[in-house]
């Protein structure tokens, strides 16, 4: 049982890592990506191929996966963001990108196609994941509070006005896209070394949807909101596993319900901070 709980926590945190990056991209630039499963897959495959076929050290492999995802993010982001695609066009372009990567993974020799890669060394432990999560959240928080982060918020609120104030739209967007690709790649690497088996079927548009949905449900423009939403979206279906297929039915229903009844997301623009906890205890004491 303890092992099972550890497993659920590890999974949730891996999703949290990917979600935080996407929260920085979608939540802080207003663009909507439906292809982040591709970055997740690129990170997972790069890291596993290195550690599986070439016996590269786990941390080096993780770093390589992250770097690869960042590189691909820059390659796909440069033309699409330069062309200033409207939000729907951008969303569909990323959807296409995600599917194209999946089809490629299914047909390359090194990825062993649809059979996938079995027997990846099990290196991801709870400690590693916890440390990485804290690190990623810390970096994301600093990014959001930095000059670049505030520029990104300005872009989200009103990109025409932001551009007039001298903010380089393209630079802000590509920087946050590359950051989110990196965290997705990192999460992918951790995922692969935790489940020890990956195949292209794991990285479908469904995964991308889940990541984006966590961001929107948690509240666009918040970091902690999506973190909580990501945990809920992984942990609750896990807890409801007895209900098998019905849990995904409930998940879809929940998404629609959140959009209708609480469009600002569970947490809106608020961040959960230590002060909230302090206040909570003060109330309890008084």
């Amino acid at each position, binding site marked *: 049982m303890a092992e099972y709980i550890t497993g659920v926590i590890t999974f949730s945190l891996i999703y949290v890592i990917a979600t935080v990056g996407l929260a920085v991209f979608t939540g802080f630039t207003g663009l909507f990506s439906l292809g982040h499963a591709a970055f997740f897959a690129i990170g997972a495959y790069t890291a596993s191929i290195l550690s599986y076929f070439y016996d590269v050290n786990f941390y080096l492999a993780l770093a390589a996966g992250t770097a690869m995802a960042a590189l691909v993010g820059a390659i796909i982001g440069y033309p699409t963001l330069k062309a200033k695609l409207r939000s729907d066009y951008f969303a*569909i372009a990323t959807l296409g*990108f995600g*599917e*194209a990567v999946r089809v490629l993974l299914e047909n390359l020799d090194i990825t062993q196609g649809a059979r996938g890669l079995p027997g990846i060394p099990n290196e991801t432990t709870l400690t590693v994941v916890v440390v990485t999560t804290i690190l990623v959240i810390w970096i994301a928080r600093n990014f959001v509070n930095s000059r670049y982060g505030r520029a990104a918020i300005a872009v989200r609120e009103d990109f025409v006005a932001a551009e007039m104030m001298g903010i380089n739209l393209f630079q802000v967007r590509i920087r946050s896209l590359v950051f989110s690709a990196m965290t997705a790649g990192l999460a992918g690497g951790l995922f692969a070394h935790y489940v020890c088996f990956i195949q292209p079927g794991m990285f479908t548009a469904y995964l991308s949807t889940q990541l984006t949905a966590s961001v929107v449900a948690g509240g666009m423009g918040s970091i902690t909101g999506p973190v909580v939403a990501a945990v809920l979206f992984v942990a609750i279906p896990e807890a409801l596993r007895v209900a098998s297929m019905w849990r*995904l039915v409930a*998940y879809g229903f929940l998404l629609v319900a959140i959009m209708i009844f609480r469009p600002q997301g569970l947490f809106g623009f608020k961040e959960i901070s230590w002060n909230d906890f302090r206040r909570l205890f003060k109330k309890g004491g008084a």
Partner: protein
Amino acid sequence: MFIQTLVTGLAIGGIYALMAVGYSLVFSILNFSNFAYGSIIMLGAYIGYFSLMKMGVPVYGAIIASIIGAAFLCLLNERLAYSTLRKRNASSLYFMISAMGTSIFLENLVYATIGSRFYAFPEVLTQQNISFGGVSIGLLDVFAIVFSFTAIYALHYFLQNSRTGIAIRAASYDMQVSQLNGVNISKTIGWVFLLAGALAGISGMFLGMKYMVYPTMGWITNKAYIAAVIGGLGSLPGAVVGGLLLGVLETFVSAYVSSVVRDVFSFSLLVILLLVLPTGLFGKFLEEKV
């Protein structure tokens, strides 16, 4: 070989065009990507299959049942998942997530209730060929072409000539101004979803006959999105041209190169085209709304 491939391509392209038109119709009026459309197509196929096989309705009856069923499901989808957002003037992002939620909900509802089995239509319908000057062409393909074009023409005629059609065109041009001029927006949008659903029913039926009926068959609407984007989102002639172009090109690629690269080809075509023509072939240049 060439003519045979062309006809197959046109048949697939016709179905893509149907889906892309349905999708573009919704986009033109509400300005968002209706990701639930694939699930409506899937449900249309199920309705067609079950009324044909389990209730003994003749083929044409099954097609009509699937059209009517899908049309009402599509309307229901709008009333439950989008109308509240519409009244609140929410941004298209919320519509998209709501649509995705609907799609996940419907797909898994089918898994949970009907199961993940693949259903195939009887072979009598799908295996007939007509020979014509040395090439044999599937009867189903011919049917798909004829039916798709008839449906698209009927839609075009309806939009150009009926009062509702004029209201739809006015609303897609400027919703607020048309409302000021006495167009009942809620009713007009209801019509749009009914029409899009009807197209979903036809395309679902043909897709089911050509391939099979199963819960995730809605993924094929990805191709419809691509077709609509190639033609320019919200443009109906663009959707038709985009669908045909994509269907024919894809069939030629899978016939002459390999069927493996077919999907990669379509997606790369999408990305490349977006870079050259960011609003598609027939798209108006739309700035992001401020």
